[in-house]
């Protein structure tokens, strides 16, 4: 049961990580990994 929840959560969280990274990186500072920083700090 827990394993199933892990899969479900990850299937939601992983794309969210991707979308936030892309959205931040596309708008700001191409030379600095601000998108990853944003994802790490919000997580």
């Amino acid at each position, binding site marked *: 049961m*827990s*394993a199933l929840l*892990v*899969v479900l*959560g*990850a*299937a*939601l*969280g*992983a*794309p969210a*990580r*991707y*979308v936030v*990274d*892309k959205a931040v990186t596309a708008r700001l500072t191409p030379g600095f990994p601000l998108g990853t920083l944003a994802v*790490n700090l919000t*997580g």
Partner: protein
Amino acid sequence: MGTVDDPDVGLVAEHGPGVVVIAAGGALGSLARYGVNLALPHAGGFPLATFLENVVGCFVLGALLVVLTGLRRPHRLVRPFLGTGVLGGFTTFSTYAVDAVTRDSPLVAAGYVAGTLAASWGGVVLARRLGGVR
């Protein structure tokens, strides 16, 4: 119904496959992390499971990027699937931070914070060296 000129259709066409493979990869990576956590439970001491997940994940991501750089035309979904998906799901920054703050011993917390950072950095450097990248 969207037409070809509809910007939303372009958005789905551009990011849709990536989102799908990242979701699948994230599920696999997170499941693997869950397995490591079950195998290596830590009761207030050094968070070995999280430490290993982050260090191993950094080494493998470093290796993956070296390998992809060496390929002439890697499939565009390989990096999102393995990097953002599987390894992103396997590693964790949030648990790293929570682990650090919730240690009983400040000494263990400091060693964990510095040790994870140093070993993860070292993992990426080692992977790049093994791959012939400086």
